């Protein structure tokens, strides 16, 4: 199929999907949550791609790759834009420390777990690449999404201190993971995947951070006075395209670079409301388009290596969250006791997990990249199925007033 017709088909699905999907339902079943999280579009994409019906050919997908690139940048910007100091400081200070240590512990669990698994499953892979992949898997499993928590709060019509703590942690976890992503792509910078020296890696990381900071500041200069909405749209689109395009051209993840752009701008500007309106109006259709394209790109191969890796990822993720909270609760001196299975509220990956996985897949044209993407997407899918049940177990064990 010609790229243009392929694009037409995807737009049509995105248009209909954003009208009818993503609706919160009062009953939070796995099926409802799969519909709500949009993961179903990943499989629709898989069906439309070369692995399925072949409607979206490889040529068409290659022509549409700038859209994937832009969508990743857009998601990164949207994510970074939410990390506004004025919003974050409303939460107790120890939440931020807890978030860092919780993410670090899950990353470490994931790193060692997947390093061990890769050592057994992919013995031919080079040492540096294997370590890089293990770091990437570790970072991936530290990602969470607030979608499930919001859906639970909606179905229960209740929001309390546990909810807000969990909401904070899932919102901020992406920051640490994306920071880690920049470490991976700087120190294992494609096409030289052997780890670079500390100086070279640090220099690359500095460049990939300073570039969006400079442009974020520039965006602020442009919009600090009264700016008509069409002009705002031009600058916003232009910057996200420019930053994500530059990062992709130089093998950096648009997700991280655009997140830094979003953080810089949201902490300088006073136009949050206007920007949010623009960002949110495009969020759903763009997300559906991204999921369909990722699904179509996905070279799905399900063997025992992938099944084992998926199992290990889900296991170490669960362990990482379950074991870390009791330790950190004491370390950070919480005045109220966390429920014993509080970690169960963090099983959902959400869209950021998918974006993270595909971001790495886009940058690294390596034989192992398809393996990484398959394992990552299947782990995400399974987690999305399990996470509503896990949350239900947690809620049944705690006093509902504490969640309120």
């Amino acid at each position, binding site marked *: 199929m010609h790229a243009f017709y392929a694009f037409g088909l995807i737009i049509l699905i995105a248009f209909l999907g954003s009208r009818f999907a993503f609706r919160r339902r009062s009953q939070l079943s796995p099926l409802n949550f799969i519909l709500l999280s949009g993961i179903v579009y990943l499989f629709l994409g898989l069906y439309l791609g070369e692995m399925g019906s072949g409607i979206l050919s490889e040529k068409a997908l290659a022509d549409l*790759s*700038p859209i994937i690139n*832009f969508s990743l940048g857009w998601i990164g910007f949207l994510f970074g834009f939410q990390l506004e100091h004025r919003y974050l400081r409303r939460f107790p200070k120890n939440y931020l420390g807890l978030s860092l240590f919780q993410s670090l512990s899950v990353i470490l669990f994931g790193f060692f777990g997947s390093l061990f698994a890769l050592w057994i499953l992919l013995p031919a892979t080079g040492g540096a690449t294997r370590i890089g992949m293990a770091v990437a898997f570790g970072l991936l499993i530290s990602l969470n999404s607030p979608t499930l928590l919001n859906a639970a709060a909606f179905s229960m019509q209740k929001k309390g201190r546990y909810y807000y703590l969990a909401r904070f942690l899932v919102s901020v976890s992406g920051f640490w993971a994306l920071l880690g992503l920049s470490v991976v792509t700087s120190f294992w910078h494609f096409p030289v995947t052997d780890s670079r020296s500390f100086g070279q890696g640090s220099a690359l990381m500095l460049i990939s951070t300073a570039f969006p900071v400079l442009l974020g500041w520039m965006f602020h200069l*442009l919009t600090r006075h009264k700016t008509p909405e069409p*002009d705002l749209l031009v600058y916003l689109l*232009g910057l996200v395209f420019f930053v*994500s*395009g530059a990062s992709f051209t*130089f093998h950096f993840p648009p997700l991280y670079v655009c997140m830094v752009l979003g953080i810089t701008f949201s902490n300088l500007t006073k136009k949050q409301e206007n920007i949010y309106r623009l960002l949110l109006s495009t969020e759903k259709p763009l997300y559906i388009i991204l999921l369909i394209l990722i699904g179509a790109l996905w070279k799905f191969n399900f063997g025992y290596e992938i099944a084992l890796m998926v199992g290990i990822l889900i296991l170490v993720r669960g362990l990482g969250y379950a074991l870390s909270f009791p330790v950190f609760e004491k370390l950070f001196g919480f005045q109220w006791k966390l429920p014993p299975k509080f970690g169960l509220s963090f099983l959902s990956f959400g869209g950021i997990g998918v974006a993270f996985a595909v971001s790495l897949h886009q940058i690294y044209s390596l034989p192992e990249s398809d393996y990484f993407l398959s394992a990552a997407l299947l782990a995400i899918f399974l987690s999305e199925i399990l996470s509503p049940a896990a949350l239900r177990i947690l809620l049944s064990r705690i006093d509902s007033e504490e969640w309120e």
Partner: protein
Amino acid sequence: MIPAAVVFILMFLLKSGWLAPYGDWGQSTPLALGFILIFAALFGKQVSRLKLPQITGFIVAGILCGPYVLKFLSITDVQNLQLFDGLALSLIALTAGGEMRIPQLRGSLKAIGTMVFSQTLAIMAGFMLLGWLGRSFLPYFSGMTPGQSLAYAVLLGTLATATSPSTTIAVIMETKAAGRCTDLILSAAVVKDFIVIMLFAFSLSLAESLLSPELGMNLGSVLHVLEDIGGSILIGLAVGGGIILYLKFIRREMAIFILSIAFFTYQITHGFGFHPLLICLIAGFLVQNMSAQGDSLIQEIEKISLPVYVVFFAISGASLDLGALKAGWLFALIYVVWRGILKFVGTYWGSRWSGQNREMQRFGWAGFISQAGVALGMAIIIENEFPSWGGEFKTMVLAVIAVNQIIGPVLLQKLLVKVGEVGKKFTVNSISRFSYSGGEAASPEK
């Protein structure tokens, strides 16, 4: 100024010999798009401070950063970004159709007809004269038989008749101009587009019969054009009907809806040989005049169209072949000046016959100088139809378009300032509340 400089320096660094070897430039289209979007928009703002239209800034930014000057955009980038052409042209045509209101047209139908007729007549006659006389003193025509020079002249005249409605609309939108002169220029530019398309079919057939007398006049191609136009009108009515129903009953996800309609209407119908501009124009016209949703449509388009226009005009600048301008500058200069003179003659008489005011008679020609997509499209068809000399012809036409597209918007803006119609259109809603009364009713003072 600082943001434009920052973006420019960053792009310069990325493309410099220092960093460029580390980049994967086969995938640089998003980078090129982002850069040209910001840089052209900021450059346009700077240019508007010099009392010039922003779109001149977009075009000049495109030329500067394009593959023929600074090479920030490669030829592949420009080709990839020409995907925006269809989208922009459709949005422009939808807007143009939506801005044409029946009461307003009814009042100026005679003026539009007279203006289009007199301009077309003056230009065709003038270029035939140039072709006839030019054989003795213009190197371009030397060595041609009378039939050949007439064929050339007819085609040149047809191309010279074309004006760019997209540029005209963009300048009018940017300057928020409204009034009698604005309406006349806009309507005449749009109507002339149809006339030129039909005239081109006749000219092409005539040129073929003059250059290859054994083939004779091909009336089939003329009928085919008429069929295409009829089909386009029907499709336009269907698209317009669809838009009315959507705006009336659903009216959600408007940005995606409008962009999809514009993009796919262009791509699909263009592929089948119909005229997407005409289709979108009819659709916009129908929505405006047969429903209560016309102003909503215009408002929604205005919200989302600026990024598309910035890229469209910047890329049209970047794709101008400056090498062609260098090679054929002398004939291009003669062509541009002669066309300007003929436009003046045609507009002067057209304005006089239709009873326009003195300003329009003297300066109205300045509103019809810009040239873009239609002229270029015709040049490409000529290149394909006459491979032996069509390439050289197209190169010369490209040079002419380059000049006209740079000076055209500036002249139009000066005209709108001269006739005092700039800034008269303050909101879409405010205009719709008034019936047409020469534009004065829409002024903020009232």
